[in-house]
């Protein structure tokens, strides 16, 4: 009796998920993601990034804190050991970027324009959550998964932008490139994976996150009290 009840309950969940998947189109999902992102005032997240560079897998973990009103984004490298302890502070208000280098016990200060120029894009460092936006992306919901945290959507991006630097730097055949994005029950895109055929070229996972926790500008700006080198 108990087993039958459990089985029926599981089937109901699967059925409900399937119905929800049918009801929720990719456009609706993208709109929900957009709405969620627009409601974010500050973001604190721990992010794992795994990319393939010259045949080597490089795994990097960041602690990211960003505030829209404060116009500040702070990144602390947690791994690998080669860069652990470094802190990057993108200050849009003062248009500058500070990098704390623990080995040198110094902070490098440079104009933000130079940093953005290096990326090759005009990045909004004070609005980091917008980089998670699905707006203007063409895709389809490939799978709806039910987890302990709720319903998760697996999205396949159907029209990859050939200009994406990740592809141009890592992919040898962009025609075979495939990208998947996972969106959680809070409509936060928290995971992505990038493939060329069956080969995974990169993964990004927001391991944990906290929204609108009231991060202050002072918290974001706090850096070790060491000499500053201006570039």
């Amino acid at each position, binding site marked *: 009796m108990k087993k039958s009840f459990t089985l029926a309950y599981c089937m109901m969940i699967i059925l409900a998920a399937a119905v929800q998947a049918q009801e929720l189109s990719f456009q609706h999902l993208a709109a929900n993601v957009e709405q969620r992102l627009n409601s974010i005032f500050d973001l604190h997240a721990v*992010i794992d*990034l795994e*990319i393939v*560079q010259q045949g080597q897998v*490089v795994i*990097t973990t*960041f602690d990211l804190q960003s505030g829209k009103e404060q116009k500040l984004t702070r*990144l602390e*490298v947690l791994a690998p*050991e*080669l*860069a*652990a*302890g*470094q802190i*990057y502070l993108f200050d849009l208000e003062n248009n500058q970027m500070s*990098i704390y*280098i*623990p*080995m*040198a016990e*110094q902070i*490098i200060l*440079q104009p933000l324009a*130079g*940093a953005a120029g*290096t*990326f*090759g*894009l005009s*990045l909004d460092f004070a609005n*980091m959550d*917008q*980089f*998670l*936006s*699905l*707006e*203007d*992306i063409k895709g389809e919901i490939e799978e709806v998964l039910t987890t302990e945290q709720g319903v998760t959507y697996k999205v396949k991006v159907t029209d990859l*932008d050939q*200009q*994406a*630097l*990740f*592809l141009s*730097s890592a992919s040898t055949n962009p025609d075979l490139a495939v*990208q998947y*994005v996972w969106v959680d029950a809070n409509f936060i*895109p928290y995971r*992505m994976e*990038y493939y060329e055929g069956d080969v995974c070229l*990169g993964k*990004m996972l927001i391991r944990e996150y906290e929204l609108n926790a009231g991060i202050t500008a002072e918290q974001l700006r706090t850096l070790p*009290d060491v000499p500053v*080198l*201006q*570039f």
Partner: protein
Amino acid sequence: MLKNGKILVVFIGLVCIVLLPSAVVQAEARFIVGYTGDDWFAGIQGEHRSRSLMGFIGYQEDVVSGLVALTNQAPKPLGYVQAGREVFLGNIKYSVEAYGGNPDFHTDLLAGNRLGIRGEYKQQTGKQAYGIAGELNLLGKPTLKLVPYLEWRSTGVLKAHLEAGTESIAVGLDYGFALSPQAQAGVFAAYDFKNKALDYGARLTFAGGTLTGAVNTETGMSLGLAWKGAECPFAAGIRWQQKVQWYASYTWKM
């Protein structure tokens, strides 16, 4: 990735080494006067520094400097020339420097002339660091010195080193700690098995200056004070070990 590949570009940019054209160049000249303990001297020093970013994870600094001074009695030249590079790349630091003359002029005016190279490699992993420093001197009797070391960081920095070279075989400990955000203190001790000499002492570092007191069982006690103004053009140093030697300099930025 998601929006025109931006998020991945952000993070990839942080883990890739991209050489930036951004560089800072500084050149300065100094007029220096002082007393060696036996003679007065006067001279000039020139220094050229070039600092450039190495992607988002470090920078390198190239320094070329030279000093020439003449003593007043039976004019004898003092000074040095040196060229070196120091690189900070993530949690790795390395440096290499070639020199001729007395590259330790500012800490010991009469340390003697040498011709050689010295370098260091250091890597930090969390609260620990390890590295090796070395020096090869080619002037007169060639000498070689290698100093592997380990560092542990907590409230202070504890450094243990082993020194193996043609002139000495020694072990030592150094502990530095912060007294305040502007002041640091340290104690050190090293024992040289080859020369059977113990060297120990303490140092105090404050805004722009370092005060060092040391005792060596072979050479006796020494006291040193070096100071360089951060905002003003003056620098000075004084060292006492049986005799008093000192210098003062004035800097012109170019």
